[in-house]
């Protein structure tokens, strides 16, 4: 059953936060796979659980959060059961991560070089001089001019874009098998966003590193990744290869996301955005979590939670509209109302 090509298999992951005001199920049964060298995007509005999912894979969920269920199979290891000590051998070495805020993600009191070589010294059996050479080489690869000078400078002397390049250099310095980039360009301005994404794509292709690119912006992913996972309210709602997803989105939420992304071919179409906001885990709706905002919501959706169902060519959707039995029942009940408009 296990695919030779498979690198990461997250199944039924549940990460909850145990706060003073009750349990917050931020990630509630998330499953997806990533193949070796594959470029995957996780998309969803803020608060849908993307960051918590990625931190769970890294074993970096902070108190009061905890992985309470599910498996994270990385190659043949189940990271969900790993201790912090075991995870340290994986982090920065096999799986690396880049964060959203380049301005605050580097330690202000140490030089770039100091922080860069730290990962190399940690995971590779090299001396300081070699680590320095490798670091400067990495800095050059991510397009930083005068890398040997930057090596000795402090983070505050670099711009946001440059710091994010440093973060990329740092994360790729140990040649990881998987790179998780959590909204790596959200904090940067538009022209620099494109450069950084291009750079990341080139590098991971060259190094044969798989990538999970996390974003709330579907527009970013079209040109970049092979496959898209759409998350909503702590769950995966749709999963498909990027081409099919853009051509024929199934889940009403995905459609909403796409409609709010401007496309060149239909400029005359009005830009629609999804009404309402992501529910907080504290007031999660019954039934389908999307139903209060869904234009196609049916009576059935209000009380019954849909499951993630596999459809043709491996794509997955969590929506009653694609359940024959339910649809049949709905049609009988109320004529043609509530039928999906494709």
């Amino acid at each position: 059953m296990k695919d030779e090509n498979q690198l990461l298999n997250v199944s039924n992951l549940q990460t909850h936060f145990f706060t003073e005001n009750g349990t917050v199920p931020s990630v509630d049964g998330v499953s997806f796979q990533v193949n070796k060298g594959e470029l995957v995007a996780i998309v969803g509005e803020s608060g849908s659980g993307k960051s918590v999912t990625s931190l769970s894979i890294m074993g970096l969920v902070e108190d009061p959060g905890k992985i309470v269920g599910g498996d994270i199979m990385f190659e043949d290891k189940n990271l969900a059961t790993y201790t912090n000590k075991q995870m340290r051998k994986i982090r920065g070495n096999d799986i690396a991560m880049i964060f959203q805020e380049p301005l605050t993600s580097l330690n202000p009191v140490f030089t770039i070089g100091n922080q860069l070589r730290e990962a190399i010294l940690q995971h590779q059996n090299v001396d300081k001089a070699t680590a320095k050479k490798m670091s400067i080489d990495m800095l050059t690869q991510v397009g930083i001019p005068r890398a040997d000078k930057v090596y000795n400078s402090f983070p505050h002397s670099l711009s946001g874009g440059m710091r994010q390049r440093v973060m990329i250099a740092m994360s790729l310095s140990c040649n990881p098998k998987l790179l998780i980039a959590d909204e790596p360009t959200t904090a940067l301005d538009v022209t620099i966003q494109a450069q950084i994404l291009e750079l990341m794509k080139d590098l991971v292709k060259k190094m044969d590193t798989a990538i999970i690119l996390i974003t709330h912006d579907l527009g970013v992913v079209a040109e970049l990744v092979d496959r898209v996972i759409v998350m909503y309210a702590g769950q995966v709602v749709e999963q498909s290869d990027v081409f099919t997803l853009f051509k024929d989105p199934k889940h009403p939420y995905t459609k909403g996301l796409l409609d709010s992304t401007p496309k060149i071919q239909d400029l005359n179409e009005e830009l629609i955005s999804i009404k309402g906001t992501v529910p907080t885990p504290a007031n999660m709706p019954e039934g389908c979590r999307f139903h209060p905002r869904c234009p196609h919501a049916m009576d059935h959706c209000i009380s019954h939670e849909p499951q993630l169902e596999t459809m043709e060519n491996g794509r997955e959707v969590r929506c009653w509209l694609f359940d024959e039995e339910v649809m049949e029942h709905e049609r009988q009940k109320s004529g043609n109302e509530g039928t999906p408009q494709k």
Partner: protein
Amino acid sequence: MSQQVTPEPIPEPPVEPTPESKRRLKKSSPITRWAKLLLKSKTGTVGLFIVLVVFIVGIFADQLAPFGVNEQNYANMLAPPSWAEGGTSEHFLGTDNLGRDILSRIIYGTTISLLVGIFSVVVAGVLGMAAGLFSGYYGGWLDTITMRLVDAFLSIPNILFILVILSVLNPGILTLIFAIGVTNWVIYARLIRGEVLSVKEREYVKAAKSIGTKNMTIIRRHILPNVFSTFIVISTLSVATTIILEASLSFLGMGVQPPDVSWGYMLADGRDYLATNWWLATFPGLAITITVLGIIFLGDWLRDVLDPRSQGR
């Protein structure tokens, strides 16, 4: 890449959902709300309890003390506490070298501690508030001079100024209140001035000014209410430090003078009998520690309630 329009505004949702309980609290009257917040904090409750007890003891010292402050019992000099070996039943905490009841002296000492603690804070508060308000509000040379003075006071330990004052004036309760008051005003002056500078720039204050409201009215109506909570918190915590300061100075023989009694003075007395009669020095110190602890607890709680920014610090 084209211009992106995101489906929803980016701001992340609040990490912790607003608890239902807090929302409910907002609707009730301020006093019930405070009471509820107080009971939620264990240390706050303990602090309030201690402070209440200390106040009652301080106010009703005459009624509560079993013996007079300087009443001597020659038959029972240096008697151990009643519950210790060799103690006499009438002296719960024992007696000192002159046969005076230690419990009674601690009770009378409470009054003195509170008097010095509160009044020197009042003196410092009034002086500092006036200096901070005027220098912040009017600015100019008044501000420059005040702030230079504040810098000087802050860069030198205030105990030095107090010692200089105490070396030229006759020691006693009033001198103590004066000396502590005129050295501690700077803390208030600086904080109040900062607050005034930020309040001054707000629209409603500018508006009041533009329609010709008198300066004093603006200060009273718009600035005082805004600095009030900061003022209360610093004052509460200052009472704690002042009580320790008074005890220290009295311990050194420069503070409260006999026949008045002070916890610090009792400690200085007890020090000489340490080898043989431990209770003389032990209980006054306990009284100071418990009182100060209570005030700190209460002050920290007040800070959390009045200034949500500082929560959990």
